[in-house]
């Protein structure tokens, strides 16, 4: 959807709700905006139903603001806290069966390549740690091993949060949650290392507290996936509801535990340098 297609049919401009008029007249479609422009354009999310202080909601907001081409992006998500918010984004998005998001996204990307051979259509898998590292690990790995042109973004809140707080593979060893009262017995899954070893051309980790860097990483991950092969971005998004801290402490927690890592293959490095991002 190019900006000139996101046009209201003549005669209906006045009856369209203000939100849609704003999206058409002042939205990010086709304008190459980013996080530094937040506050100056109509964002792709109006409001959201997630908990107060939710790190995941902020990560989706920042990611949506960083997409290099939101009008040509399809987000594929799966069950989790994110799936409550995702349908409200003014971006094409698909909710898959739990864990099936990467398989669906791979098929979609291949179909889009055939249907629009001259256009870049970015397919971004955005899901929680349970969806990517536990239930959907096999499809995730196989899309990486097959070198599919997909960006995978994990919103890592280190638990199954909207089902009451079960431990996930991404919870840290010893983590105590509502439904893991004796503490987790094994370490956090090393997904960045797995992604690198499975063939991702770009792998990065960041927290939601580092907005500018997060935005840059989103752009890099999508550009590399578009031109070279699979990419993986892991965003740490603390959950005040299940980890039982004050809603005002989300960013503090994110900063304290943030691990910034960026692996860029030599081919990807060249591309990123040329694109100057």
């Amino acid at each position, binding site marked *: 959807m190019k900006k000139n297609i996101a*046009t209201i*049919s003549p*005669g*209906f401009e006045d009856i*369209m*709700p203000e939100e849609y008029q704003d999206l058409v007249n002042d939205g990010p479609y086709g304008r190459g905006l980013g996080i530094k422009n937040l506050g100056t354009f109509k964002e792709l999310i109006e409001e959201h*139903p997630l908990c107060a202080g939710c790190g995941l909601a902020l990560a989706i907001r920042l990611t949506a603001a960083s997409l290099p081409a939101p009008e040509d992006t399809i987000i594929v998500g799966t069950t989790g806290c994110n799936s409550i918010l995702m349908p*409200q984004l003014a971006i094409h998005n698909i909710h898959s069966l739990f864990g099936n998001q990467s398989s669906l996204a791979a098929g979609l990307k291949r179909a889009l390549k055939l249907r629009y051979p001259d256009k870049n259509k970015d397919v971004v898998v955005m899901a929680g740690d349970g969806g990517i590292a536990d239930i959907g690990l096999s499809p995730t790995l196989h899309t990486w091993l097959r070198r599919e042109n997909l960006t995978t973004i994990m919103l890592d809140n280190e638990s199954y949060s909207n089902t009451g707080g079960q431990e996930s593979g991404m919870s840290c060893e010893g983590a105590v949650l509502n439904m893991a009262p004796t503490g987790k017995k094994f370490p956090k899954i090393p997904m960045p290392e797995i992604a690198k070893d499975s063939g991702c051309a770009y792998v990065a980790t960041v927290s939601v507290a580092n907005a500018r860097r997060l935005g840059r990483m989103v752009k890099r991950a999508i550009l590399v996936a578009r031109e070279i092969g699979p990419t993986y971005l892991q965003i740490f998004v603390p959950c005040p509801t299940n980890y039982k801290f004050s809603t005002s402490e989300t960013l503090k927690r994110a900063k304290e535990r943030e691990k910034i890592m960026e692996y860029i293959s030599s081919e990807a490095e060249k591309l990123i340098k040329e694109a100057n991002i």
Partner: protein
Amino acid sequence: MAISSYRVIPGPESYLSPAAASMGVVLPEKGEALIEGKIVPEEEAIEKITEKLILAKNPFFFPGPLILWAWNEKAIAKAKAVKELAEAAGAKIIPMPDYRPKYPMINPEEEINPNHPNLTIWHNKIDTCVFVGVHCHYANLALKIIRGGTDCYTIALCGQAGHEDAMITLRDIHSEEVQKLTEVVKRAKGGTPQ
């Protein structure tokens, strides 16, 4: 094929009204239409739509994304024709710009959403509504919810095979057919409205 005894009529029918298709209502063939679940000739349905629109106290048109957005010339032409029809019928327009669930809720004065269309019907006290340009699944979903929870009379002008869940549905309706319907409504009202 057995004829269904189920009638698609104004509700409130039930909290979860059944899909008309599951009750045996089948879609019309070309040149046919549905009135309250019964297959009739298209002309009969056009007359009934005209009657319903003219006699309605508070008719509304609900145009959907297929015509609200200027995807192509056909969409623009159909949008123009629908607006003229609404004006000829003396109906107001509330758009369904997309199908996103809205948090915390939509503003029923300016928008209708397929996930809770009854809010818009109730708030505006709509007694007759016309769906046009709404994708099949979401139109049927909304029509079913309206039948379940309101007494609004529903009409669907469909560009494809029609909607079993509407009380009256025409199929294969494009800009030319909408223009013809407008002429019928104008004639029935006794001239072009001022």
